[in-house]
């Protein structure tokens, strides 16, 4: 399976809106919570109450500060998880066939039963989307909640990734990029959805919407009713109330 499918029927993925993400980390723990009891081995934590806790997460939210040449500095929060690349190097490097990209929807998954935990796929991924679970010794990564999105045991409205479902600002959108009319395709087209590190040639499916331009409010200052210095308060009052007179 380590060869990639030539094409996939659907291209499921996420649009993440960096203009809206407030960096609340809800998607991080919702993802951990769902995947801790869902697909494959639990996401373990080492030394959870100790001096150096460390655990497996499939989604981590970064925060960057950007200083433009001639405007006020800004902060952008950026969730980072698997981008379900079309040209996924993590798949082709895998020696066991554990890593694969699904032909029907393009989701990149790890078959944990076949994973030897060599770590090479994590090395091959430019985006840090894979973490080797220290307890299970298998590679963990975002599954695009494959065990939710088709799950007939869940009500229809819940068949979306846990992180999307929980995101309080609605900064995360899930859908099919193969369909140009889908919500995600249109959002990405309208708002200039970005592929991260295109120079790596991985052809990510997920798109990030760039922050809108900041600090550009341009209302022309209000003209005074009259010259108060000259007219005094009484003049102002007359002029003002004359309006409803």
């Amino acid at each position, binding site marked *: 399976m380590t060869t990639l499918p030539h094409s996939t029927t659907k291209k499921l993925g996420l649009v993440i809106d960096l203009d809206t993400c407030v960096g609340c980390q809800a998607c991080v723990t919702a993802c951990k919570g769902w995947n801790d009891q869902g697909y494959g081995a639990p996401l373990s934590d080492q030394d959870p109450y100790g001096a150096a806790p460390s655990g*497996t997460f499939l989604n981590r939210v970064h925060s960057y500060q950007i200083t433009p040449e001639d405007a006020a500095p*800004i902060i952008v929060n950026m969730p980072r998880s698997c981008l379900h690349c079309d040209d996924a190097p993590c798949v082709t490097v895998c*020696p066991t066939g554990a890593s694969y990209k699904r032909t029907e929807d393009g989701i990149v998954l790890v078959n944990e039963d076949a994973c030897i935990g060599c770590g090479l796929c994590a*090395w091959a991924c*430019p985006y840090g989307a894979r973490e080797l679970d220290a307890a299970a010794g298998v590679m963990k990564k975002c599954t695009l909640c494959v065990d939710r999105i088709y799950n007939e045991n869940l009500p229809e409205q819940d068949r979306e990734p846990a992180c999307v479902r929980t995101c309080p600002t609605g900064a995360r959108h899930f859908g099919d990029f193969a369909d140009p009319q889908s919500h995600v395709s249109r959002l990405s087209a309208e708002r200039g959805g970005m592929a*991260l590190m295109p120079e790596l040639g991985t052809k990510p499916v997920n798109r990030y919407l760039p922050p809108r331009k900041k600090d550009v409010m341009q209302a022309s200052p209000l003209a005074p009713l009259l010259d108060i210095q000259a007219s005094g308060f009484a003049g102002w009052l007359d002029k003002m109330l004359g309006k409803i007179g």
Partner: protein
Amino acid sequence: MNPAPSVILFTTLSGLGFGLLAFLSAGLVEVHGLHAFFFWAAGYALAVGGLLLSTFHLGNPQRALLAFSQWRSSWLSREAVAAVATLLWLAPVALSQWLGFDWPPFWGLVGAILCAATIFTTSMIYAQLKTVPRWNTWITPVMFQSFALAGGAILAGQKPVALVALAALAVVQALVWRIGDGRFAQLGASIGTATGLGSIGTVRVFEQPHTSPNYLMREMIHVVGRKHAQKLRIITLLFAVVLPLMLLVLAPGGPTALLCAAALHLLGAITSRWLFFAQAEHVVGLYYGAR
């Protein structure tokens, strides 16, 4: 990248082993009987030992057999297949030399080529990774071959070859650093492209996603001893090339001198390999502001 001892030892020892085996297999070493047995055993021990060490960093080594399945796409799988195939192929050659069967040299020549191929597959595990620009260059396989050649030649007691190989290694190693140092910049990846935010202005990390460390940071963003890189490069050249060369040239021939030269060279190779990992920067570090 994290210079994990198991991986460093795996690549250096197996490289050395297959280098030696290549020389033996090609019939370049005049050995017979017990003498041959010891040489071959040493070659096998290094190669197999290295391979075994490589399983130490596996999360689930019990499934290691599965790693032979993806030879069509995966260099790691190819390496596994190549290594085992080579070791199997070489077995009759070794037997022949040990027990004096005098089988046709064709088997041995093919065996030597297989050794080189195995070393190549090992090197390609690293060289293929676009994510680690320092490795992702033609010089990486050349370097692996050069070390195998030089180390193999010393161990095989092939003085003239060794001298030439060592000299070549010095050049290759220098090139490796020269090319490697510029690779990240050449790739053009930056915190700006990693985040897609570079067009707005200068991007810096404000807060890391977690205050506690994680797998990515340990494995790929590991920064250790980069400060000492210059010193370690000199040590590498000294041990891997200069000292063995001097020993080979100045010391009277004999197993002790050879072993000493080989040991020194191995130390140098390990240092080189340590640097190979420690200096390698993974592009994921960009997300963490590393670089």
